[in-house]
């Protein structure tokens, strides 16, 4: 289970702040970096992304055509 607060920037990297509108600032890289479940044992999330399968698509929500 990956919880967003477990994703942290590596040491030495800084949070990037962007001005969205006057008075509104976004933290651009708040969810980038490495995932830490246990302290000081980071997991490289980026290498695992490709291993996740796309969700299966089983539904087709179209109505049936009327029989003539």
């Amino acid at each position, binding site marked *: 289970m*990956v919880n967003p*607060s477990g994703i942290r920037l590596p040491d030495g990297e800084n*949070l990037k702040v962007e001005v969205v509108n006057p*008075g*509104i600032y976004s933290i651009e890289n*708040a969810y980038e970096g490495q995932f830490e479940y246990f302290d000081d044992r980071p997991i490289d999330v980026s290498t695992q992304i490709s291993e996740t399968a796309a969700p299966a698509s089983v539904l087709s929500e179209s109505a049936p055509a009327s029989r003539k």
Partner: protein
Amino acid sequence: MKAYAILDGGGVKGAALAGCLKAAEEQKIEFLGYGGTSAGSIIAFLAAVGYTGEELHKIMTQEIQFKDFLDDSGVLLERLKELPGKLKNPGWKSVLVLWKHKDLIHTLTDKFGLYRAHKLQEFLLQRVVDKFPDFKGRAQITFEDLRQKGCPLLKVVTSDLGSRIPRVYSALGGHEFNGSALDAVRASMSYPFVFRPVKMNEQYLVDGGLCSNLPLFLFEQERNKDGLPVIAFDLESAPASAGDGYGFRNFCGDMMSTALESADHLQQRMIQGIHHVRIPIPEGIDTLDFNLTADQCETLFLAGHSATHSFFSLRVPQWGQVTNQVERLQALHVSPKLVVPVLQAIAKEFESETPAQNVRCHIMLPTDHGTRIIVYQFGMDNDADSDLELGMDAGCSGAAWSMRKPIVADLIEAKKNYESAWKMSKTQQNKVRADRQTMFSVPMFDLRTAGDALIVDNLREIGVLSIDTATSLEQTQWLNERKAYVVQKGKEWADILSRILQ
């Protein structure tokens, strides 16, 4: 309370589902959508057309004659049921039995099922006309017809033998919006070999139960969008026993039941967060018992009513006490008693660990009509903005929601351009307490889906946690010295609160 209903397939046991809907109605549950398979699709269709619980009670216990749906009142079906037992004796006697039943076998091999069930479609069509007299003379009723009449969303599940997948029919998507709802229901209840499959677009459609008898997935899109509860009404028969007297006929029946129901148990493990109402079906009532008496139908109705009434009384008693939108959302998530102390701790922590003073804290959750509203709060009891309702992307919290990122806002600056930059009306802006100077908002994600999502982009948002203060942005240091602390703590509290809310 608004919700979506999923109705289990169960042959002639549909009267129990009528009891479920009657009990839900008594609890003031308003279903925005009905979906189902087989018998569940029939009840879903009637409910979507506008039949109340009491009207369904009357239809299912007094008006409906199941054997009338069998073209010969069930003679062929009884012969089919008896056939496995008669084939027990090896040798020439079996050949003789097959010879005697050659008309039955020919019907199966030629038509793939015994009955056309036209009377069922006529029955349903008449029920629609009773509700909408202007449909009189029509041969078909489409999903689009029902949508235009303002009926709740109807979804019907069938099994497509060509593509070997479940097909969900509704007026929602796809390319054929004018499809026949009657044909979809007829296909959905095409119990293998009993009813003939429905042929559409060169594909055979049969009982949706082959793919999913209790289609828990039906309203996932809607649930992710509006957060409304989905209630699945599950007809549970007593476990079969393979004791003395267990024969080939029992074996065939149990094998068919297993094929229809086993996949749903797997689905229940995969799809979380659905309210599951289990209705124990009284012993002695079989899926294909088309000779059901009125008393047995009444027994089924009462079983559904009782199980559903118990569910609402014992599992979600708070639903019946809801008086407004905020309470509705609290009832769906968790009592404020469990959340407010956490919000208080957050406010105190930000006051002690950063220069911010006079800190308030709140959680906004999406409503079912495209807005967000404050559902849980600390420090706002006497403030006009304690019930603030905003557009999805309005204000500081709206920016956090739409951008899916933590946002820090200078509220003094916000007052200068609340309409253009903040998408807030003057009334909304005026509600915000005048001494507020700085705000920090962080999105809350659905951590139940986190097992399938290794990056935050794949997580569903459930709300926004916000913290505001009477201290100026510069003095809070939230965007300079204390920035890393504030962002990390905000993310952690948002995760903790997501867990509590779910």
